[in-house]
Structures are given as structure tokens and as C-alpha cells.
């Protein structure tokens, strides 16, 4: 992927050693040797990655910190004024490799900038090395979705083809006549078309589709039908009571989607 095309030219690597990995233990004390070992292990990887990016003329920085991963990630993002956080983790078993690390949820909740929860292993067992090839953008036409549109337009040069979907809930179609159902369908198709045209006008290949049913299930279905490489959604800046009680799409996607998820926060709370 030509990262420069998308305006990505400065990378910051952060590895957080959890406090409990080196914390004081009875009879042992602070595990200084363990800390040095973990730091050096992270540095070996960072140097390797940094060399490849430096040779492309990129700017690279690195941190190895000890503490709470979520706090460290969010603090470092602020300190370095980053435009995108990428998080993800190699897990011990094949099944867990497909899923996001628990810290990702915390980062997504608190991050003021877009977060890419990168799940690099596809369900097929292959490496997903081109997440921006065919992203699927699920819009609910909210201000968070508008911000996601602006962000996708900014990075349009790395996107292969964009699939845009909206999911109409069954309750919106309940107890209505055929005509009313058709009106709802027409209304949302028009909205989708407007968004598609924005991307097409910007020179990006895009398609739009309307789905009906349970939000999470339909997004999952759409990723399979459209051969998506990643899911993109907008999210409100702060968690709401509703989100906690019902479970939001972003949270579900981070926890359960087998594809990378790019979450773009709204500038203001909805």
C-alpha cells in the first residue's frame, strides 16, 4: 500500500508492557531483568519495521512504556498528535487471532481520532495485507457517519473500491402498506446514492446497497456478500447509556468482526 498517497508519512510505534508483567512480587521484587528483556524484544521488532519505513522516506518514532495499555495508547496519541491509531494483537490460539484484543475496546471508547482495529488474519487463514482494498462503510446518516465520509475522502487514494451500505430495521417497515415500504426503500436509496456520488465525484469507485434486518447481522452479511476487506463505521465520541444497555454496532464489530474495523469518531457528541 502506498501510504504516502493517503498522507501517512509519520509512524509512531508503541509497545506497552503491562505493569503486572514486571511488578513487584513477594520474594522477587521488581523484575528489572524481565523489563529489560521485554523492552529489547520490542525494540528488535521496532527497528526492523522502522528500517523499512525510513527507507521509503517516512518519519518514525518509537516508545516502549510500562503501565495501563489503554491509558498509554491514548496519552501517546495525544502527545504525538496522531491522526490514526492502529491497534491489534497476535493472540495465542488461531481462534483468538481472529478477534480483537480486549484493550482495543477501551482505546476505541476513549480515542479522539480514528482507530483501526487491525485483525490481520482472515477467516480463511490468509493474511489480510490490503485492508483498504475493499472497505465496507456502514452508514446510519448521523453526524458520526458524515465525519466518516470526510475521513474516507481524505484517504481515498489508498482505497480500491468502497461499498456503502445502510441497514433499515424491520421495525421501520412494520405495519405499513406496500407503498409505504417502497417509500422507505426509495428514501434510503436516494440518501445512499447521494453519498455514493460524493465518492464517485472524488474519483473513487463506489457502490451502494440497502439491507433490511438486524443491524449487526446485516453488516456481517454485507461484508461476506461484498467480499469486504474491512468495515468502516462512525462512532459517537463518548459512550452513552444506550450503548451500554443495548450494545452498539462499533462495540460489536470490534469484539466480533473477523475483519479489520476502522472507527471514526464524530467531532461532537450526537
Amino acid at each position: 500500500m502506498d501510504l504516502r498517497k493517503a498522507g501517512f508519512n509519520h509512524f509512531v510505534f508503541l509497545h506497552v508492557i503491562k505493569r503486572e508483567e514486571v511488578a513487584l512480587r513477594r520474594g522477587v521484587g521488581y523484575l528489572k531483568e524481565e523489563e529489560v528483556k521485554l523492552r529489547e524484544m520490542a525494540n528488535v521488532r521496532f527497528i526492523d519495521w522502522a528500517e523499512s519505513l525510513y527507507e521509503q522516506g517516512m518519519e518514525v518514532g518509537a516508545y516502549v512504556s510500562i503501565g495501563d495499555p489503554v491509558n498509554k495508547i491514548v496519552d501517546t496519541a495525544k502527545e504525538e498528535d496522531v491522526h490514526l491509531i492502529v491497534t491489534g494483537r497476535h493472540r495465542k490460539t488461531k481462534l483468538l487471532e481472529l478477534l480483537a484484543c480486549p484493550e482495543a475496546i477501551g482505546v476505541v471508547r476513549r480515542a479522539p481520532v480514528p482507530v483501526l482495529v487491525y485483525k490481520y488474519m482472515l477467516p480463511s487463514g490468509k493474511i489480510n495485507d490490503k485492508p483498504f482494498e475493499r472497505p465496507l462503510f456502514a452508514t446510519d446518516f448521523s453526524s458520526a457517519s458524515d465525519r466518516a465520509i470526510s475521513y474516507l475522502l481524505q484517504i481515498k487514494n489508498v482505497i480500491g473500491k468502497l461499498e456503502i451500505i445502510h441497514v433499515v430495521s424491520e421495525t421501520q417497515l412494520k405495519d405499513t402498506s406496500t407503498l409505504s415500504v417502497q417509500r422507505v426503500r426509495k428514501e434510503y436509496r436516494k440518501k445512499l446514492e447521494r453519498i455514493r456520488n460524493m465518492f464517485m465525484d472524488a474519483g473513487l469507485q463506489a457502490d451502494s446497497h440497502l439491507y433490511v434486518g438486524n443491524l449487526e447481522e446485516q453488516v456481517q452479511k454485507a461484508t461476506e456478500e461484498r467480499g469486504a476487506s474491512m468495515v468502516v463505521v462512525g462512532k459517537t465520541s463518548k459512550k452513552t447509556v444506550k450503548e451500554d444497555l443495548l450494545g452498539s454496532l462499533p462495540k460489536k464489530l470490534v469484539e466480533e468482526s473477523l475483519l479489520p474495523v476502522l472507527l471514526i469518531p464524530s467531532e461532537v457528541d450526537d
Partner: protein
Amino acid sequence: MAKKVLCVDDDPAVVVAMETVVEESGYTPLTAPNGEEGLRKVRAEKPDLVILDVLMPKQSGIKMYRELKTDQELKQIPVVIHSGIARRTFLRSQEALTEFGDEPVAEPEEYLEKPVEPEEIAETLKRILG
């Protein structure tokens, strides 16, 4: 008055070791934890030599080196790169930045790939600063 040597490195252990070598070699050590702070110190203190790490937070040694070597007032200050990043990567990165339209820059006076024995650093300082 003793010559001043600025050591720019984010690893506190390396900084302490460098300070010791610089002092024992008869120079005055100055330190900075990243390229951004390092550049500020160069402008304020005008050191006689800079020992520069590459992979650091805030601003890398690649960028700081380029800023130094394209500044008419600072480009004469000798720079010793002291890093785990390979020399060929450093040189290739500077070439890439030049290809993107930046000004070409000279190679560093010395490139020391970590880890380096204190004696080698002391010899390098002596050779460049006298």
C-alpha cells in the same frame, strides 16, 4: 573552555553512559531525549559535536539530521550517528527524502551501530574534536 558535545537519545541508560564518556574525554556533555528537543538545544547551545540516535519519539534522528545539515548556521557541526538502525538504511532514507524534493545532505562524520564500546566513542570524539 571545554568543547560541548550534545547527546540526543531517548534511552536514559545510553544518555548516562554517553555523559560519562564525554566527561572523561574532557568535554562538556549536554543531553536531549528526542530530535525536537535536540534541535532546540543545538540552536541555544551551539555544541561542537552532536551524537545522535535515530529511532526516538517526537522527532527522529533522520529528521533532526536533515534539519541540522540544511541549516546554514548549523550544518558545520559534526554529527556522529549512534543507533541500532543500519547505516545503509539511514543513507537510503536521506536519499528518499532528497528524491521527494528535499535538499541533498552530506553523510554524517561517523556512523556507529549500537552497541558500541565506550573506548570507540572516546576515540571518535578525539578524532573529530581533537
